[in-house]
């Protein structure tokens, strides 16, 4: 028996995920707001948290985007190696879903076709799609719209191995410091260390899919996350950059083996509109197969 999914089902799922991601802030992020509201020492900072909570409620109840920058549509796809996709191209099906979601969901279209000519494509396509082939026969799709305010504040450094852990931490903290209020703090700091240049960047972005504040499973790395969070919050930037003791909600770190001569560090900053929604499609069993 072989499992198969028709592209129309994929399009429909993506359309819905685009809307839900933009309307419904995750409970994990909301509970971080509430937790930090208790911790924040600046009265202006507390006011910001109250408004963020109210904003999320309005967006959810009225089915409108929490933020007008509904982002580039970043999509992570995990394709089971035993799955058969029928009826057309997977990539086209995904992009069709994005176009429908952004149009029918009254989301802002922010993609320009060419980085130099800068003409809007009109439907927020193409999406930025990352594929992974995994064991199994299901299809997991995560839609994670990413606004430019925070995306533009990311940075990459090819550190020297001799700079070590301290060099890595300092680079992350400096990157957040320079960003100030631009990426709409409170932020989540995604950090990717190791691999090659693009691998580090991919890890930094992918770390943002974790539940906000969920520590790394490895205690050693979770400790580093806590240390970076402490130092980032000591910067004083605070919610919206108005000053305060909570600049970040969380730090998520991912690592990967690297070259003997390399120590790449990528920082991907996620604003408080930390949007991602996922679905696992199971498809249907068809009679054919080996």
């Amino acid at each position, binding site marked *: 028996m072989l499992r198969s999914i028709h592209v129309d089902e994929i399009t429909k799922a993506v359309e819905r995920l685009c809307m839900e991601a933009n309307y419904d802030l995750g409970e994990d992020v909301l509970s971080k707001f509430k937790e930090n509201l208790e911790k924040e020492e600046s009265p202006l900072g507390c006011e910001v948290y109250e408004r963020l909570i109210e904003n999320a409620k309005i967006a959810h109840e009225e089915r409108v985007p929490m*933020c007008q920058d509904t982002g580039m549509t970043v999509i992570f796809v995990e394709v089971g190696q035993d799955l058969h996709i029928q009826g057309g191209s997977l990539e086209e099906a995904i992009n069709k879903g994005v176009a429908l979601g952004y149009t029918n969901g009254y989301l802002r279209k922010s993609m320009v076709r060419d980085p130099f000519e800068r003409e809007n494509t009109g439907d927020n396509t193409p999406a930025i799609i990352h594929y992974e082939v995994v064991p199994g026969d299901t299809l997991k799709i995560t839609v994670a719209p990413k606004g430019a305010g925070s995306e533009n504040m990311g940075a990459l450094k090819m550190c020297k191995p001799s700079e070590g852990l301290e060099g890595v931490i300092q680079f992350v903290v400096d990157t957040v410091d320079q960003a100030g209020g631009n990426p709409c703090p409170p932020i989540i700091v995604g950090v990717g260390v190791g691999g090659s240049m693009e691998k580090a960047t991919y890890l930094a972005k992918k770390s943002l899919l974790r539940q906000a504040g969920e520590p790394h499973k490895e205690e050693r790395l979770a400790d580093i996350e806590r240390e970076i969070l402490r130092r980032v919050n000591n910067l004083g930037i605070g919610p*919206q*950059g108005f000053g305060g003791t909570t600049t970040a909600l969380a730090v998520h770190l991912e690592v990967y083996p690297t070259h003997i001569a390399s120590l790449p560090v990528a920082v991907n900053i996620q604003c408080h509109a930390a949007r991602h929604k996922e679905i696992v499609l199971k498809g249907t069993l068809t009679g054919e197969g080996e």
Partner: protein
Amino acid sequence: MGESIRIELPLTQEKVASLKAGDSVLLNGVLYTGRDAAHKKMVEALERGEELPFDVRDQVIYFVGPAPPKPGQVIGSAGPTTSGRMDAYSPKLIERGLTGMIGKGLRSHEVIDSMKKHGAVYFGAIGGTGALLAKRIVSAEVVAYPELGPEAIRKLEVKDFPVMVVIDKDGNNLYETGKAQYRKE
């Protein structure tokens, strides 16, 4: 947070002078939207010796590119965009009498110098609260550059639109003082 100051627009020099960094303000009346593309067009018009599409004297520009309205809404979600991208253009408008800007994030020295010289205020709205802020906008009408879509210049009427004075006309900067106050080594 303390009491908010209610301000009726237009933002005259007298009102500009009364605002201090850190003040929480509720704006009422008419303001205009504009972001990257509209600013570029306005400044290019000035360079060609042409008039601006609206008289900027005593006006406030809100750096925003709203989401499309749902049926029944006057405007879609409408929170501020990063102001730094307007830094190259803002001084030219401040020279012409613009007294207020609403955005989020840091401004350049050139902008702050121009604000001090001509008398202007930089307000911060809370970035990412577009759903909430849209509810304080009671009417919206495209008045220039409709071809720019979300980036067209809109005339907005706002009611109790919540902003914070981030940089006042004396150059006091909440981003610096706030950060310094809570920074720990």
